[in-house]
């Protein structure tokens, strides 16, 4: 079973990467751009047939390693 995990910085945490990307895009002439924030993306495949169980496991991986929950949020989706 395959899942995607997206990790984003919490709203009030500074996002230096997003900021620089945003500025660069604006300099390149993308006038319509309002804002951009950068995060991480994982594709995780696990050997587990029960979706609820699988999701629970992925959730655990996130909390244990993939995500720094002090500054980041995450969401999990089956793909």
């Amino acid at each position, binding site marked *: 079973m395959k899942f995607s995990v997206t990790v984003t910085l919490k709203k009030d*945490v*500074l996002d*230096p990467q997003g900021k*620089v990307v945003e500025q660069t895009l604006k300099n390149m002439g993308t006038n319509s751009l309002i804002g951009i924030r950068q995060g991480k993306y994982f594709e995780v495949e696990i050997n587990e047939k029960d979706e609820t169980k699988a999701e629970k496991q992925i959730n655990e991986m996130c909390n244990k*390693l993939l995500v*720094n929950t*002090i*500054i980041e949020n995450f969401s999990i989706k089956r793909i």
Partner: protein
Amino acid sequence: MNSSVIVFPGSNCDRDIAVALEKSKFKNKMVWHKENELPKSDLIVIPGGFSYGDYLRSGAIAAKSNILKEVVKASKKGCLILGVCNGFQILIETGLLKGALLRNQNLRFLSKDVYLKVLNNENKFCNKYKSNELIKLNIAHNEGNYFTDQKHLESLEEKNLIAFKYCDKKGDILNDSNPNGSLNNIAGIFNEEKNILGMMPHPERMIEDILTNQDGMKLFNSLFN
């Protein structure tokens, strides 16, 4: 006194810091990250480098290693812990120090000599420095941009838990003298008990005049007594 340097597969300042520790007379041991036990230590150092390539978030993977559990235990018993550069990032990821180290503001790796002001010399790490002493150390990092919430920032300032701030040649703490975008120019912080110090600059690189100066040596000499 006994010191231990924790070695991760991607540590690369481990030898450098061992040289500095031995120069200040510590009896030092290198401790491989897979070990489950720490040798008897008065000081534990987590050196700089790229512990696991810094591939997920710097320090994140190292923070999950066996030996770090022992380091956390030792810290609770009051053992002195120093984290330099990647070591600071690891201390943050274990939660021994609060906040986050984000990408440098300009998104470039930054390696250069910077001026620092020693803000707190009433602790085990900095007692050989004068209060507000101006020193020059070397930085070399990609993610040294210290960030924390407003409340914690205020408490760091109030409780005098900031060890060093980036400043200019004259000692003025200005935006222009902030190399990486750290909040309030923070370069190093203590925990509340002041037995843990995390800092981005490398004191072990400044222990010889032939390489630049000896401003880092005072830190190791403070620790050894």
